[in-house]
């Protein structure tokens, strides 16, 4: 069989999917049309409310008929999400949403498939399916709600919980070293990797739209505050007093600047350094963000230490990495079509096989 051609696939990947073409009555859809009749039952103050609202807000702008959108989730607080969307939806089992979404997308590439998952769902019980989806690069949006805790089971530490955190299952403090989700995703050959926050609604909406536009698996890690079991886990990045000092917003082609323009990041070889923009250093000397640079993206995922720690760097938000390559579903269809071109299957010929004999 001929080897798969990445060039041809890339071309196919860039071609517009038929469903992206808006039809007439889509214009009348509003965020409300995407809200189901089910009562939303997250805890008051949960970060999930904001994410739900932003997703519902963005949906009408995408130009996709509601019936062509499917939300797939696993288990956890975030995984209740599909029930609140008036689209198609599956609330599945723990850790498997990415696998179910993969099968659905292979079967029906024309659908817009969204996975809603959490740090327990995709970085613990479902890590295998999560990384495999990323490397296969099916055109699926993965919204990973990271609250660094198990909420639905009432407060055990998760794979992203910070070292030493005291929870119900770690009364002496956790001795687990936390996982770095975006470094994992990049290591798994993820093609689109981004991070945003539940409390920065504009940024969240922008990233959701970028994720949708990307032809391939787009991973969006969303820092999401659990008010009950891990309140304030991301306050250094979300609160007025600290966020400007700690947040680094990435923009393609723009220098890495934070702290209200007072600081920037320079690269010495592969070593990033924070510099004061006090006139001595010009913006041109700074690290210019390039979404297609995997090495730089890899360094950015390593900006993972908390404020005050030895190797601290500001936490990046935005699109770390985005580079289109062939999508699994396109390659699958290409193979099917190539085989059919040589002659569609004939069931009678198949059943008969090559060698037969007749008894009179």
């Amino acid at each position, binding site marked *: 069989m001929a080897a798969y051609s990445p060039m041809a696939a890339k071309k196919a990947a860039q071609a517009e999917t038929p469903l992206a073409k808006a039809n007439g009555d889509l214009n009348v859809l509003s965020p409300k049309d995407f809200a189901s009749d089910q009562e939303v039952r997250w805890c008051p103050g949960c970060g999930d409310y904001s994410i739900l609202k932003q997703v519902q807000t963005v949906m009408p702008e995408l130009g996709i008929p509601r019936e062509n959108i499917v939300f797939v989730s696993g288990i956890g607080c975030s995984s209740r999400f599909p029930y609140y969307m008036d689209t198609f939806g599956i609330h599945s089992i723990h850790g498997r949403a990415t696998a179910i979404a993969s099968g659905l997308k292979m079967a029906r590439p024309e659908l817009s498939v969204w996975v809603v998952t959490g740090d327990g769902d995709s970085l613990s019980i479902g890590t*295998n399916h999560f990384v495999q989806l990323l490397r296969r690069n099916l055109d699926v949006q993965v919204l990973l709600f990271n609250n660094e805790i198990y909420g639905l089971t009432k407060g055990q530490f998760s794979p992203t919980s910070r070292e030493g955190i005291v929870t119900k299952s770690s009364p002496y403090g956790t001795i687990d070293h936390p996982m770095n989700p975006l470094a994992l995703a990049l290591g798994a050959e993820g093609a689109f990797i981004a991070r945003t926050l539940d409390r920065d609604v504009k940024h969240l909406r922008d990233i959701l739209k970028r994720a949708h536009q990307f032809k391939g698996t787009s991973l969006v890690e969303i820092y999401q505050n659990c008010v009950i079991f891990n309140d304030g886990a991301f306050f250094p990045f979300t609160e007025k007093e600290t966020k400007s000092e700690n947040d680094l917003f990435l923009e393609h082609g723009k220098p890495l600047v934070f702290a209200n323009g007072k600081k920037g990041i320079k690269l010495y070889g592969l070593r990033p350094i924070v510099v004061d923009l006090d006139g001595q250093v010009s913006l041109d000397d700074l690290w210019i963000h390039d979404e297609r640079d995997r090495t730089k993206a890899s360094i950015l995922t390593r900006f993972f230490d908390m404020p005050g720690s030895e190797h601290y760097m500001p936490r990046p938000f935005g699109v770390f990495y985005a580079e289109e390559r062939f999508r699994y579903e396109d390659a699958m269809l290409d193979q*099917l079509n190539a085989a059919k071109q040589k002659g*569609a299957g004939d*069931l009678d010929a198949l059943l008969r096989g*090559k060698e037969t004999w*007749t*008894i009179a």
Partner: protein
Amino acid sequence: MNEVKPAPRLESRDEVTILFAGDSGDGMQLTGTQFTETTAIFGNDINTFPNYPAEIRAPAGTLAGVSGFQVHFGSKSIYTPGDQCDVLVVMNVAALKANLKNLKNGGMIIASSDGFDAKNLDLANAKTNPLDDGSLAQYQVHVVDVVRLTKLALEGSGLSSKDMERSKNMFVLGMLYWLYSRPMDATIRGLQEKFKKKPDIAEANIKVLKAGFNYCDSTEVFGTRYSVQPAKMPPGTYRHIMGNQATAYALIAASQKSGLPLFLGSYPITPASDILHELAKHKNFGVRTFQAEDEIGAICAAIGAAYGGHLAATTTSGPGMDLKAEAMGLALTLELPLVIIDVQRGGPSTGLPTKTEQSDLMLALYGRHGEAPLPVVAAYSPEDCFYATYEAARIALQFMTPVICLTDGYIANGTEPWKFPTSAELPELTVKFAAPRDKDDAKFLPYKRDDLLSRPWAIPGTKGLEHRVGGIEKQHETGNISYDAENHEFMTKLRAEKVANVAKTIPPQSMDSGREKGKLLVLGWGSTYGSIKTAVRELISEGYDISHAHLRYINPMPSNLGEIIYNFDQVVVPELNNGQLVRLIREKFLVPAIPYNKIQGMPFTVSELKNKFTEILNAKMSTKEAK
């Protein structure tokens, strides 16, 4: 080519069993399958049993590395691979040591002398060479210098010594073709096809095949030549088929007949992988095969495809069934069609991966948490893998449910002639997706049921059907989340009733052999079919009052099964496990069904079954006489 020299005597045989045995690298499986193909085309009834080690290349020359292929063919009906063989072909000492017990008294041994040198004797822990220590006196032994003769035949071919030696199995095959008066043309065609891209290798193999044939013709190594006349089989056109291949074909057939694209999510596992391999070839039928990252990913992807409106399947063996259990529960409660093929093997845990067993029956029925009933069907022969799988697909689509189809390593790898159906002869599979709705239509109810309690299949992309499904208990009809106590009990019973309703769509249980009432009913399921059938037919002809019924539908069972059971004084249930169906029969029908179990990774032999059945019949007689 059919000209027979006058020298050897020609004797006729009704049936013959040949066992090809050698190192797993000796090509015995290929030799066996080629002999099978030729013999099937010749018109004999045939049944085969490959028996190979779990290791791909176990240490050469050792007992652990012996690979065997047993072929049973005849001019009469053949339902088993044969208890003991008439001819044992051995490529080395280990193959002889491992299989001598399977050779009939006075049977023939064809030994490749190359495999009986000092090194091979040592590897097989043989103190003396059995070929000349007198231990084989009761057999007809033919020692042939296969390797040397093969190399002589290929002299000047330009092949390396190692490549030449690889063809030695074809020499043996040629000898067997001569011995049993078979034509070589099918194998020649097969070799040309197999080595299409390496014509020199094809040519070498064909040359050696002919050399083996001619060697017998000219040297009179065998004094007698045998003929096995074609069997009197029902008229029609036949092919030969392997169980896993039949399973794959059934999925394609169900896809074609239903008009649904086929999606297979699978993870490699012995002895089920061949279904994945087979389906991966047939992309021209639009078959999507997805080799997943694990068993769970495989079934979950299949669930995703089923949700999207495909005919979805997942294929596995016992360990994979364990892993898929949670996802099966999800598919069950989502009420999506899904065909789950379990090619059973010896367990527990890794167990005996390449050996057969029927030990997943309880797993199929009960191996999920909560009240989670699923329809279960079982295939009883290689060709029946086709019909059982097709029926599993029919039930899945009609009832919107996962269906488990049990086969096992024995029938999955076994072959037999198949009077294959035409596509027109296959039952129709009609599928209707839920229709689109307008704004003004009543709200769509995804769990509103038809009279058999099946729900609509509402696939994404259908306007107005937006709805959510999930693993949490659902409210009747709306499918919305419901924790209501009464609703849960109602839904649990509804799901059970739906599965029970499958019984309304299946044929009544019929008798395979014997009368509908009498002294002893042998009730079997799955791959024990051929051995039981042969044993029971032989006992009937010997004058015993015994009958055989074989269960295709394990859950639900045919509604007349009780009637049949109550018509017999006794029921015996032979199984390749520690007693599973027998428990169901006892529980369901309150009869003291007798278990008869074998847990050795091997099928029942006919004689084992006959002994057991006559023991039961005679014991009953003597009790009666005592009264």
